[in-house]
């Protein structure tokens, strides 16, 4: 039990004016870089880490947490407004956010994204503050076998996203997995499918693939659709009373179950090192889609359903706090963002790990205070930012989309460090355009591509551990439980869901 004086001293440090200004600066930078496709909060944190050397330890971590939290909401802004996710974890936000924007309800969609993001983030921060130690112990029980079973569970959610054609959905997943095999194979370390490009030893990078397929493909589609008319990129409703500009309390409250589920998924996956916010966002979206279908929601997912935005944003934002659970309790970074926080702590001469609470209690409770403060600042700056972004997208689409394409080129160049990454982005833009035009699910492709390397690695490790004998799985009850969940999820989302869809179509 922590000493109350230490807790109060830490929270007092966090609430100082100087610390507040660092949090504000971090959130502002995060929201901006999150909104620019390709840059994202992780790159901003990586650039900022060396500069934190001159700050106090608390100010440094507060600033970085502000960047991380602001960036996760920032990614939703272009996803909603121009169907161009600023970060891969906001890809599912675009699925329902952009249709709402096209209906003239962009402010409603952005506010839902903001409120769901803050809700999920606050939930995971509360979990971090209260039960981080036991959760970290559970996360530590996840060995390679259990992680493999978790990957199978994550793949099973694809069954809920394949769309009208199961064959096309499976082909998209196979293609995504195939692209994920480019680079060194995990068991033998030999290069595969790199066509002589040594830069591909690490595989196809996620950012160019995701931005190419989701953002650039959409930019091409929107540019190709411009035929002489000079429209704004997004129609923004005028006046506070306009329906599209307001998100009512009733609308927010109606999404409470979806947000709770998303926050729980994000928190659990965030506590497990290496899974990440993109997987949490898609998992939450798929489960919310099925849950709303079961309740016969009149608004379909993909047509502008607020639950789709709430599910994605609550899940991806709740990963931030949960990522710190293994970091603060065990010294294991749960993500690249958490690894950057570790490097900032080590620059300051602080060693993360089990003794951190004992030796740096005041700093840790200061960090908790700063995280809660960052949530309020994120909320406040998000509201202010909506007016700024509304002005940006009020420009004609013939101006917005060529500019967005340029931002994608620069963002991907910065994230990969060479033009090969930009070339990969353009190739996958063509692939994404062709897949969308012929009815193959780009989202399924991205999920399979994202999970692919981890899936192959954990499959290889699992087969080695169990020596190829399936009965050895009996020694891994957590893994078996996860496999049972995967079978249930595939049945619930796939077989039963499709049966329900057919029944609903028959009724129409």
């Amino acid at each position: 039990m922590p000493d109350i004086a230490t807790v109060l001293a830490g929270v007092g440090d966090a609430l100082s004016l100087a610390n507040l200004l660092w949090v504000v600066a971090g959130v502002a930078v995060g929201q901006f870089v999150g909104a620019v496709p390709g840059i994202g909060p992780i790159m901003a944190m990586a650039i900022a880490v060396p500069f934190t050397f001159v700050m106090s330890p608390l100010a440094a971590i507060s600033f970085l947490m502000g960047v991380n939290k602001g960036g996760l909401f920032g990614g939703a802004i272009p996803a909603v407004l121009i169907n161009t996710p600023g970060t891969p974890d906001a890809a599912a936000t675009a699925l329902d956010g952009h249709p709402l924007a096209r209906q003239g309800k962009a402010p409603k969609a952005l506010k839902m994204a903001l409120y769901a993001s803050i809700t999920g983030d606050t939930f995971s921060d509360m979990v971090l503050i209260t039960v981080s130690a036991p959760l970290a112990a559970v996360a530590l029980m996840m060995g390679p076998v259990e992680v493999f079973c978790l990957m199978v569970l994550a793949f099973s959610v694809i069954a809920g996203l394949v769309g009208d054609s199961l064959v096309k959905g499976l082909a998209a997943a196979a293609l995504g997995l195939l692209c994920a095999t480019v680079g060194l194979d995990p068991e033998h370390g030999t290069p595969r499918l790199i066509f002589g490009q040594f830069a591909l030893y690490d595989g196809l990078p996620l950012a160019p693939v995701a931005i190419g397929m989701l953002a650039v493909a959409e930019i091409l589609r929107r540019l190709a659709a411009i035929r002489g008319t000079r429209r704004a990129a997004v129609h923004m409703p005028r006046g506070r009373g306009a329906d599209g500009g307001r998100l009512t309390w009733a609308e927010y409250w109606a999404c409470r179950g979806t947000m709770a589920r998303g926050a729980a998924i994000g928190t659990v996956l965030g506590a497990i090192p290496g899974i990440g916010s993109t997987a949490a966002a898609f998992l939450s979206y798929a489960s919310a889609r099925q849950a709303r279908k079961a309740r016969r929601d009149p608004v379909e997912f993909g047509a502008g359903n607020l639950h789709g935005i709430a599910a994605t944003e609550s899940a991806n934002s709740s990963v931030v706090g949960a990522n710190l659970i293994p970091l603060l309790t065990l010294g294991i970074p749960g993500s690249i963002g958490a690894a950057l926080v570790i490097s900032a702590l080590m620059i300051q001469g602080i060693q993360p790990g089990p003794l951190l609470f004992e030796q740096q209690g005041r700093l840790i409770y200061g960090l908790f205070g700063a995280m809660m403060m960052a949530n309020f600042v994120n909320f406040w700056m998000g509201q202010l930012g909506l007016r700024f972004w509304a002005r940006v997208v009020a420009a004609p689409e013939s101006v917005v989309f060529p500019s967005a394409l340029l931002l994608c080129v620069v963002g991907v160049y910065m994230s990969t460090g060479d033009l090969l990454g930009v070339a990969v982005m353009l190739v996958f833009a063509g692939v994404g355009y062709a897949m969308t035009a012929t009815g193959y699910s780009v989202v399924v492709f991205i999920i399979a591509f994202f999970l692919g390397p981890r899936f192959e690695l954990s499959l290889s490790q699992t087969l080695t551990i169990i020596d190829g004998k399936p009965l050895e799985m009996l020694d891994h009850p957590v893994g078996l439980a996860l496999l049972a969940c995967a079978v249930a999820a595939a049945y619930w989302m796939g077989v039963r869901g499709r049966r329900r869809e057919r029944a609903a179509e028959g009724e129409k």
Partner: protein
Amino acid sequence: MTLDRVTGLLVAALGGVLLVAVIPDQVETVDYGWVRPGTLPTVLAAVLVALGLVQAALARRGAAADPDDGGVGDGGIGAVARAALYLAVAALGVWAMGRIGFVWVAPALVLALMLLVGERRPHWMAVAAIVVPGVIWLVVEVLLGRTLPGG
């Protein structure tokens, strides 16, 4: 022949080319271990062949991609051709950026795209071709100290 049948055959052909030509040439042969370098790519290529053939066989006459999902019906073949043209212009611009530099090519790239989609208003062309690349250069090179393509 329907679009679904054509795409099914294309997917099957892609899987076939991978199985016959690409994977044997681009994946090293290893004779030990549970998951060998070629295991997953080979399985996935075979799956693509099977799924492509199933799709081609099951395709209904007259069935096409859903225009609401951005299918080919959304703007027709003309929109596909325009998108291909814009992608080619972007690729040319990126290639030129690597040789001439971002500062010179970015305004030309944006201007070319704007002219191609029919934008002719001078103030908007100035905003997109001068202000946007200028702000990017200021933020990336001056504030962040990072290089831009060709820089």
